[in-house]
């Protein structure tokens, strides 16, 4: 049809891969484009599979079991502006005494690339030293930097003289 056809193409019953010259010059550009299109379509399929994987996780992941109640400190144990690190639910957390009677606790893992955040007392915020992500001490929200999600907040209760962690909210992936 287009000239420079394979001489045996119409008569041969051999499969294409058996032919000595399976692709002739005139066909080359077609083959290149066809293979490129196939590759792009398979890439699209893999991204669709990614979306389906997320859908499956969202549909079949179990609701998280209740958090345990864990004593993290006693009232007055740390000075105002002081911090205490503790483990809660397999997560490294930071407790900050923000006032005489107020405390705040967050996961210490930055929501950007999981570096450990620290409390910058003079600026009253949590800072990630890796990429200068800053978080509010009030609610863990992002003040500046590359993180897009707030720090997971540890819910605290005062039971007598004890400060008890009773749960975590926000930031973390649900169902993990």
């Amino acid at each position, binding site marked *: *049809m*287009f*000239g*420079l056809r394979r001489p045996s*193409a119409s008569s041969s019953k051999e499969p294409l891969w058996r032919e000595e010259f399976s692709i002739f*010059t*005139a*066909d080359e*550009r*077609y*083959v290149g*484009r*066809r293979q*490129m*299109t*196939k590759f*792009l*379509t398979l*890439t*699209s*399929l893999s*991204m*669709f599979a*990614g*979306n*389906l994987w*997320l*859908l499956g*996780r*969202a549909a079949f992941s179990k609701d998280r079991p209740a958090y345990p109640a864990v004593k993290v400190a006693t009232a007055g144990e740390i000075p105002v502006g002081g911090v205490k690190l503790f483990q809660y639910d397999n997560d490294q957390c930071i407790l900050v005494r923000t006032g005489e009677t107020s405390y705040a606790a967050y996961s210490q893992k930055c929501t950007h690339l999981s570096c450990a955040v620290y409390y910058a007392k003079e600026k009253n915020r949590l800072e990630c030293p890796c990429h200068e992500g800053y978080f509010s001490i009030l609610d863990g929200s992002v003040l500046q930097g590359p993180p*897009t*999600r707030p720090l997971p907040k540890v819910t605290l209760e005062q039971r007598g003289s004890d400060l008890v962690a009773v749960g975590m909210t*926000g*930031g*973390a*992936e*649900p169902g993990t």
Partner: protein
Amino acid sequence: MKAPDTPLQGRGLTAMDGVITLIIILLIVQMWLLSATLAAYLAGHRSAVVPAAFVSGLIFVGCAALYGFVERIDRNARR
């Protein structure tokens, strides 16, 4: 030296180039959709995953249809 393209060959190649361009645009949208859905899911917004999967499926069907079109052009050209 290569033989010059016939008008039909030229049209076929142009159509293929157009299809590849379209697929690339669709892929960029699909890539953005996947990353945005992942970010939303990790932030705890599960409701985003269902429409995102549906739209991603539509985009894949579109790409597959365009690939079918390219195959048809290719088959005609090689007949």
